[in-house]
């Protein structure tokens, strides 16, 4: 193959324990990560993302399946033979060594001379703006600085793949935000493939080129942030990434990638379908709150395909306002309106409203 992926995990299975008390941590997960990509494994805790990362690093054995790094199988190599480095969640900096010794550790273990190891480590520390801290002990640094040392230490041996296990979760909010930008910059400058594990969807959306959403040890969807947000493949993804309104619906007719569905009190809705589905079956419709707009309900607008309801509550959120609506059939719907427009607030709580859904914003989820 001329164009091999940086990392290719095929049908990875991880089972802990023995039957009948076994726990399946990963169930047939396949991902492929391109060279120089910032790839994120996203999911709630216990979804298997850390297991997958530790498997790539070599800390966990693989029960079934294969892992290829630039075309070479590595699943049977011990962790210290894999050209892959990890930034640990709690950094795991060696407390008895100086910052420079920490950063040089990998190169020293690879048999490089002290001089060479220290000069590369020094350069890495410069890159993460800690050049002046080389002789300190990790315990004398702040959390953010320790995080940078961990990054420098993992990058110093020039790994083919850098694994990051929720590295930002221990930092405070402001620092977390600036580290996101910095991490992405470093990744682009170094040209190293990053695999980043997080449960924070915002983190995933801001940094990743592509991401894999996982749940219960299974892969849910792979795609760019935009694809995942705008075209969620199933209910879990739609619900986990961002906010959404999920309405149960019955499919009336299917035409290509579009379907006409009936929801609630016999209102028809045009939807984009996620997977093949037959007319007559039931499924869920996902509509993002910001793609719904409100208008005063008048007799003329209350046609067959308009959903109407009563405004039940406003929540002011700064940049936008969340509006909670109780539809006539009892379904609750959230919508969000940017405060720049100021269009919703002319409806009072308790007033009747009709809602309008943007073209293509209603997505029918089969699973």
């Amino acid at each position, binding site marked *: 193959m001329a164009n091999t992926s940086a990392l290719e995990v095929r049908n990875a299975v991880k089972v802990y324990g023995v039957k009948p008390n076994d726990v399946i941590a990963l169930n047939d997960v396949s991902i492929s990560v391109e060279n120089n990509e910032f790839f994120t494994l996203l999911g709630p805790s216990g979804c298997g993302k850390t297991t997958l990362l530790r498997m790539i690093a070599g800390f966990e054995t693989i029960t079934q399946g294969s892992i290829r790094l630039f075309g070479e199988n590595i699943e049977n190599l011990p962790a*210290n033979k894999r050209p892959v480095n990890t930034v640990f969640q709690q950094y795991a900096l060696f407390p*008895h060594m100086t910052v420079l010794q920490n950063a040089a550790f990998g190169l020293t273990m690879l048999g490089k001379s002290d001089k060479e190891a220290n000069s590369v480590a020094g350069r890495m520390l410069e890159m993460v703006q800690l050049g002046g801290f080389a002789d300190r002990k990790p315990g004398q640094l702040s959390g953010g600085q320790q995080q940078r040392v961990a990054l420098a230490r993992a990058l110093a041996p020039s790994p083919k793949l850098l694994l990051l296990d929720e590295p930002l979760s221990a930092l405070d909010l402001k620092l977390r935000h600036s580290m996101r930008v910095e991490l992405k910059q470093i990744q682009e400058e170094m040209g190293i493939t990053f695999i980043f594990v997080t449960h924070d969807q915002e983190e995933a959306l801001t940094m990743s080129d592509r991401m894999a959403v996982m749940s219960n040890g299974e892969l849910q969807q792979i795609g760019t942030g935009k694809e995942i947000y705008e075209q969620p493949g199933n209910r879990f993804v739609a619900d986990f990434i961002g906010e959404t309104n999920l309405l149960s619906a019955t499919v009336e007719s299917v035409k290509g990638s579009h379907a006409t569905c009936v929801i609630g009190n016999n209102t028809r809705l045009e939807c984009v379908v996620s997977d093949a589905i037959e007319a007559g079956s039931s499924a869920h419709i996902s509509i993002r709150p910001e793609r719904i707009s409100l208008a005063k309900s008048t007799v003329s607008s209350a046609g067959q395909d308009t959903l109407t309801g009563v405004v039940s509550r406003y929540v002011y959120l700064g940049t936008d306002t969340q509006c909670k609506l109780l539809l006539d059939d009892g379904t609750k719907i959230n919508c969000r309106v940017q405060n720049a427009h100021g269009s919703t607030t002319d409806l009072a709580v308790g007033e009747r409203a009709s809602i309008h859904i943007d073209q293509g914003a209603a997505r029918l989820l089969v699973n």
Partner: protein
Amino acid sequence: MANTTTDVRRYPGFLAFTILCLVLLYTPMIIVTIYSFNDSPSITKWGGFSWRWYQDVFFGIEAAKFKTAAWNSLSIATMAGISATVIATSAAIGMIRGNSFKGKSLSFGLINLPLMVPEIVSAVATLIFFSAIGITRGYFSILIAHMVFCIPFAYLPIAARLEGIEKSYEEAAIDLYATRWKAFTKVLMPLLAPGIISGFLLAFIISLDDFIITNFVKGAGVETLPTAIFGSVKQGIKPNIMALSTLMLLVSVFFVSLSYYVSKLGERSR
């Protein structure tokens, strides 16, 4: 917090009980220490301050016997302490870092068994075992016995320290291309050092102070300090024994404090 109603210091009789305990624990030692400086050869009548019994320990009739016994005690304690520490360190790593295996709690029980079995039982068992396999009793048999019963004392501080060290340090080392051995020597050992040192000191002091097992497995003519003292006492208590006991007390206090200090120091550096 010291003023809350649940503070144990507010229980009735707390002070009296505390004083009673302290008196019972320490009066004998204090009396021995005081009378070691007694000028009179009587062990009950005070005859003024003097260093004569200390001189007697080092230069008196029994000096040669005590010297050999002290040397035996110290050399055995050092060797037994070191071996027990090495074994206890391996055991701790196996028990805590290893995956769970069948009989793990049984192994834990076995390691710590000497702490729970009455010492006289261990002593008799060791004696019978040595005669059964035909080991001549003497310096060597004492050494072997000490190595064995010192293991749990070395194990406890080492295991406690190891349990507090995150596994991710070793993982980070191995991730950064260290072999298992390098990860152990470069990363785990330095982090574990305070536990190892205090484990060694504890084992050392336990070996130094042991009487019962030693008395059973030692051959005729080989004495450690405790058995030598016991031998002297059998012919009547002379004040030089008090001087020798005071010296041993000092050594024990020194090593126990050192062990405590080292583990405190380790906690801070964590």
